[in-house]
């Protein structure tokens, strides 16, 4: 058999083979177009997340300017000024609950000085991103590019949710004292709903399936709780402290 012989035979390949080739080529092109569209969508989502974070920070800083109780803005919680508990009149013992309250506040302040917001936030972002990414990998088949994009989206979604949940936590807590926090509370709530909603929609192939949407949403919220819980456990193991909540 010569090369020409083989070349001529290949030229005369049966039509269904050539037709299958073109069909597959078409399939590949459609897939490529779909992927490009998906990438653009992912970029759009990433930009939206960044916008939400930026707007939240700007809103937080603006309202802090007018807030006499909230000096440093950003992610840190408001500082509490401890007033000394007035000494009881001679011969009387202080009420038990006052002692306990004072101890509790002191422990928290001590703990806070060790812990701070930074490590907690970073840890939560890392772990909840990982959980979300694993969830999306399990739900869908991704190639390398999709995985990379999903990783970025997960980190951004996790960051937004973590940031907004902390804001929300302190905003609700402090709104009892100051009405300025109502603005922050609303913006944080909107940010949380946005990040959860967008991620839930994005992680799903079939967006009309509400059961899957709810499952995705629950896993997404749980991931933040789980990461906080793991952080608290680790913190207690290494710092012998007392956990003070999920946010």
């Amino acid at each position: 058999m010569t090369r020409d012989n083989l070349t001529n035979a290949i030229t005369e390949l049966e039509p269904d083979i050539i037709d299958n080739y073109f069909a597959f080529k078409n399939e590949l092109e459609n897939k490529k177009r779909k992927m490009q569209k998906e990438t653009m969508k992912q970029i759009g989502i990433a930009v939206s997340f960044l916008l939400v974070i930026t707007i939240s920070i700007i809103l937080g800083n603006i309202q802090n300017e007018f807030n006499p109780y909230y000096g440093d803005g950003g992610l840190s919680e408001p500082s509490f000024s401890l007033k000394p508990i007035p000494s009881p009149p001679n011969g009387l013992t202080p009420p038990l609950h006052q002692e306990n309250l004072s101890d509790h506040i002191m422990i928290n302040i001590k703990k806070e000085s060790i812990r701070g917001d930074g490590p907690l936030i970073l840890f939560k972002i890392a772990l909840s991103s990982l959980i979300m990414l694993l969830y999306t990998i399990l739900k869908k088949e991704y190639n390398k590019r999709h995985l990379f994009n999903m990783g970025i989206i997960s980190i951004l979604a996790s960051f937004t949710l973590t940031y907004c949940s902390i804001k929300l936590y302190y905003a609700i807590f402090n709104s009892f004292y100051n009405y300025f926090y109502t603005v922050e509370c609303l913006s944080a709530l909107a940010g949380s709903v946005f990040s959860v909603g967008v991620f839930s929609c994005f992680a799903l192939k079939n967006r009309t399936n509400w059961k899957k949407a709810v499952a995705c949403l629950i896993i997404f919220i749980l991931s933040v709780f789980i990461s906080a819980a793991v952080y608290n456990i680790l913190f207690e193991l290494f710092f012998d402290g007392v956990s003070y909540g999920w946010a």
Partner: protein
Amino acid sequence: MGILKSGKDTMSDEKIIELYFARDERAIKETDIKYKKILLSIARNIVRDPRDCEECLNDTYIGTWNSIPPARPKFLLSFLSTIMRRTAINRFNGGKAQKRIVSEFTVSLSELDDIISQENDMEKEFEKKELASAISNYLRTLPKREMYIFVSRYYIADSLPQISKELGCSISTLKRDLVKIKNGLKKHLEKEGYIL
């Protein structure tokens, strides 16, 4: 925009074939609108010169016009691409006698050397169609992706970087796949009684 046109702006293959049967010259125009790009890409891989490619395209249209009727191809694009490949190879062989052209086609052909012998003793013992049928049968047993690789490389004569880009894999992976496919073809042809 992909290489294959489809949608509202193009006519269906059945209608185009009907136009050929009605000896309506719009058949060529519609074929040109729908398949010019892909046919030119086949020609370009075999004969590099753009003018030669254009001439091959015209020859393909004339060949199609002369063949339909009586032929009624089930797959119009396969029919057209076979005529185009035949025309382009003839032009390539004609041009090769005058000057040496280094094209992707020559490179792809040289890759087939390792599964064939240089002896011409048996070349007339097998009919072209029989061999084509044996190769087609082998390709039918392959997964879609491998079939695509073979046809891209040895029928369309696409370059390795182009195929690897389309499939989203590395060139080394593609080369490995090609070796596997060629070895498989060699075994298949030997099993069918071909002496390689």
